[in-house]
């Protein structure tokens, strides 16, 4: 953690010793990890593990009781333009008269007062961003009429158009069918590379991300472990994190985390369904 300052040159986010209590309960306990430019990080944890709370701390919406968060080189402020954010569950009423391209445009200057004057540069920027997330086909559709996968892409474009160095997505794969899930993950992997933006994405299942993820931050019981998938997703590490014996099983190229000690029989045999799949 305490490496030389020279190592932090391309660091876009550094979370150090963050602890948060909410309603008398400790949600995060001494959580620390860092994100470098262009990295794809999966924040993995079950529901209630504290993923959204951690994001709120990183976004500056919640002051941690202990620890610190550093975004980019600058000081951490409550609305940092170097972070693009895609919240969980954005429900848009189908009656709202707003096209996909308007929502992306609001990503440029939605926080400013007054009307946005139409300009060629603005239109080009929006078109280019829509193109980058494969959303050109439904650029003029009402936001409320988009499917889950389509809306997710438009929200990614909305977050990316202000050219942040870090893109945070809260459970972007929830409520997507398997095909759109894969499309969104591929898109994010591509975007991280092409736009030179670090991606920090939360999910309860790490499997869809295995192909694109550079590092994993595993959150359980308020504790976090970070590193490469091989370093973190191991029986010993996760058992300690959960404070309870768990087993990490590799089935083909997938990883399943189940409660209880590692079963002795050959895991390739068909057996009872895992109780705690991939949490």
């Amino acid at each position, binding site marked *: 953690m305490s490496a030389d300052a020279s190592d932090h040159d391309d660091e876009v986010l550094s979370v150090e010793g963050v602890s948060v209590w909410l309603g008398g309960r400790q949600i995060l306990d001494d959580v620390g990890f860092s994100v470098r430019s262009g990295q794809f990080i999966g924040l993995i944890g079950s529901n209630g593990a504290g993923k959204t709370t951690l994001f709120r701390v990183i976004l500056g919406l919640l002051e941690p009781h202990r620890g610190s968060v550093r975004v980019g080189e600058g000081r951490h402020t409550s609305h940092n333009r170097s972070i693009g954010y895609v919240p969980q569950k954005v429900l848009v009423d189908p009656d*709202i008269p707003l096209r996909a391209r308007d929502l992306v445009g*609001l990503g440029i200057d939605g926080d400013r*007062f007054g*009307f946005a004057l139409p300009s060629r540069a603005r239109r080009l920027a929006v078109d280019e961003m829509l193109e980058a997330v494969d959303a050109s086909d439904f650029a003029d559709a009402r936001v409320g*009429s988009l499917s889950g996968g389509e809306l997710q892409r438009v929200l990614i474009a909305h977050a990316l158009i202000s050219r942040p160095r870090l893109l945070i997505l809260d459970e972007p794969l929830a409520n997507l069918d398997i095909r*759109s899930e894969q499309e969104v993950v591929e898109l994010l992997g591509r975007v991280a590379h092409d736009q030179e933006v670090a991606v920090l994405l939360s999910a309860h299942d790490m499997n869809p991300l295995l192909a694109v993820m550079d590092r994993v931050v595993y959150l359980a019981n308020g504790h976090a472990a970070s590193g490469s998938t091989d370093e973190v997703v191991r029986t010993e590490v996760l058992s300690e994190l959960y404070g309870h014996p768990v087993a990490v099983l590799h089935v083909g190229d997938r990883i399943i985390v189940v409660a209880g000690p590692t079963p002795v029989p050959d895991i390739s045999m068909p057996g009872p369904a895992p109780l705690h799949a991939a949490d």
Partner: protein
Amino acid sequence: MLGSIVFEAGFFQNHAVRTALIIGVIVPLVSGCVGTFTVIRGQAFAGEALSDMGTLGGAGADLVGVSPLWGFVGVGVVVAGTMELFGVQRRRGRDVATGIVLGAMLGLSALFLYFDTTHSSTTGATITILFGSLFQVSGVTVPALVILGLIGLLVVGFLYRPLLLTSLSSDLATARGVRVRSIGLAFLMLMGVSVSLSSVAVGTILGTALLIGPAATALKLTRRPWSAMLTAGGIGIAATWLGILLSYDSFYWPPAKKGWPVSFFVVTLIFLFYLAADLSTWLRARRVGSEARGTGARWDRDPVGAR
């Protein structure tokens, strides 16, 4: 001009009519712009409550002998602030808080209206406050109303982008650095002013008709927020002007040949416009639906479909 068949003699020479026509531009315009956001934000109930509570202000103003407009505006702005204080961000909490404040305020309104009618013995005051009277707006109120309306339009324009973003998703807005609560409070106060203006035109009972009706109609017909705002304003103006005309003409109608109230015409026309828009979108959806079923094009919008 359509001639004397449509416009009864003296329509454009009549001072009260001209005043009504001026109000009939500014009030629907403000209502349309504010109403569009009211509908988008799902705050129609808050609008109704603000308008109803204006009764208290109107009745109070009448008791002390000032124009009801000031009572409407005063109560509207104060109540809007209180509602934001009580109602947390959650929509349900907001509705409950609104309902509780509304009940208390309407009790007081009943008392004030009773005093208005028993002490000053003018039943007209109650009718004017509750149902409005475009033809009876006093000369001094008009400039104040126009200025308030212009301020309202400027504020909507000023808040436009952050308001749009918070209406869409407060999380998205917060992440962009928008002060969601301040914007919400500013908008509620704006709604207070807007329903005050429409209360002068069509009364506190019908005030929200002008706020919600044209906006809901416009939202069915347009694809961009600002065009929805302008369309809503246009629909409101059309309904109000037609209402004024019909009401003027109705002086020769039965049963009493004393004219029908203009508020009735305005609100009914707004309702008819809404039904027409609803019918047209329904017909369009049905046509598109049947074409799509024929060609299978309907499935083009499938998220997993190849593109």
